[in-house]
C-alpha cells in the first residue's frame, strides 16, 4: 500500500522544520556565503507549502508530489488563514502593511530555486549562471533583491514562515 497523504504531509513539514533550523545556523555565521542560507530558506519554504497543500484532500497526491508548489501563493493564503485572523485580531492595518512586502519577498525566495524562473531571474542559490560573457557563482553573489529580508517587513515574512512551520497539523485521515 502506498504511503498516505497524511504521512507525506508530516514528512514535508518535518523536513521544512529541519531546513529552517539549518537556515538559522547558517544565517548566524557571517563567514558563510549568503547563497547557502538562502538555499535552505528556499527549501524550508517550498516544503512547508507542500505540507499545507497536502491538506487539500481533493488534490491528487501524485500531482502534489511531482509538481512545483508556489511559496508566494502559499503565503498569500496563509496571510488570510483563520490562524492569522486570530493572531492579528485588532491589528488589521498592521497585517495589511506587512502583507505587501511579505508577498514580494516570498516571490523572490521562490525564484531562488533554479527551475522556477531561469530565463527572467537566473540568480538562484545553487548553480552558476551566465551574465553576458561572465559566469557568476552563487557563493560570490550578494542577492540584493533579498536584502529586505533583514528589514522589519522581511522579519515579518520570516516570522510568518516560522509560525506556519510551528503550527502545522497533519490532515485528518480521509
Amino acid at each position, binding site marked *: 500500500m502506498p504511503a498516505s497523504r497524511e504521512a507525506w504531509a508530516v514528512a514535508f513539514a518535518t523536513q521544512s522544520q529541519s531546513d529552517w533550523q539549518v537556515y538559522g545556523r547558517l544565517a548566524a555565521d557571517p563567514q558563510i556565503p549568503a547563497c547557502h542560507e538562502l538555499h535552505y530558506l528556499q527549501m524550508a519554504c517550498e516544503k512547508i507549502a507542500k505540507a499545507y497543500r497536502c491538506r487539500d484532500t*481533493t488534490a491528487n497526491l501524485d500531482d502534489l508530489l511531482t*509538481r512545483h508548489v508556489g511559496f508566494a501563493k502559499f503565503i498569500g493564503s496563509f496571510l488570510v488563514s483563520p490562524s492569522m*485572523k486570530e493572531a492579528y485580531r485588532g491589528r488589521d492595518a498592521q*497585517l495589511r502593511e506587512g*502583507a505587501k512586502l511579505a508577498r514580494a519577498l516570498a516571490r523572490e525566495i521562490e525564484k531562488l530555486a533554479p527551475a522556477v524562473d531561469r530565463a527572467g531571474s537566473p540568480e538562484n542559490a545553487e548553480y552558476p549562471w551566465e551574465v553576458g560573457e561572465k559566469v557568476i557563482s552563487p557563493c560570490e553573489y550578494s542577492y540584493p533583491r533579498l536584502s529586505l529580508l533583514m528589514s522589519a517587513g522581511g522579519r515579518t515574512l520570516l516570522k510568518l514562515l516560522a509560525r506556519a512551520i510551528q503550527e502545522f*497539523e497533519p490532515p485528518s485521515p480521509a
Partner: protein
Amino acid sequence: MNAPRTKDAAASRLIQWHFSVEPELREVYRIVLDDEGSQEGPIRLLEVNAATVPTGSIEPFGFSPTEEIPFRTVIAEITPEELESLQSHPEALPEGWSLSRAERFVRPKSS
C-alpha cells in the same frame, strides 16, 4: 468574539475579514461541494486577488480550525487574468470544484 455556529456564518465572517485586510482582493468564490452540509467538510475559498502572482495553476492550501473559525478552511488565490482563463477552461479547477455552483462575494464598496 463568539464563534459563528454555522459554517455559512463562519465563511461569511472570514470572507468579510479578507476584504478588509486585502486591498487588491476583487472577489471570492465560496466553492460548494457535495460534502457542504457536513461539519467536517472544509470552507473552500477561491480568491481573486490582483496582488498574487500568476502561476497558471490553482493551488489550494488547507488550514486548521481556530476558536473563532471552527471549521477547516481551504484557500486558493488566483489573479483576475487566471479567473478569465478559468471561465473558458473550467477543467483547470481542482476536482469537484465548479464556479457555476459557487457562491460569489464581491468586494464591498466601503472597503
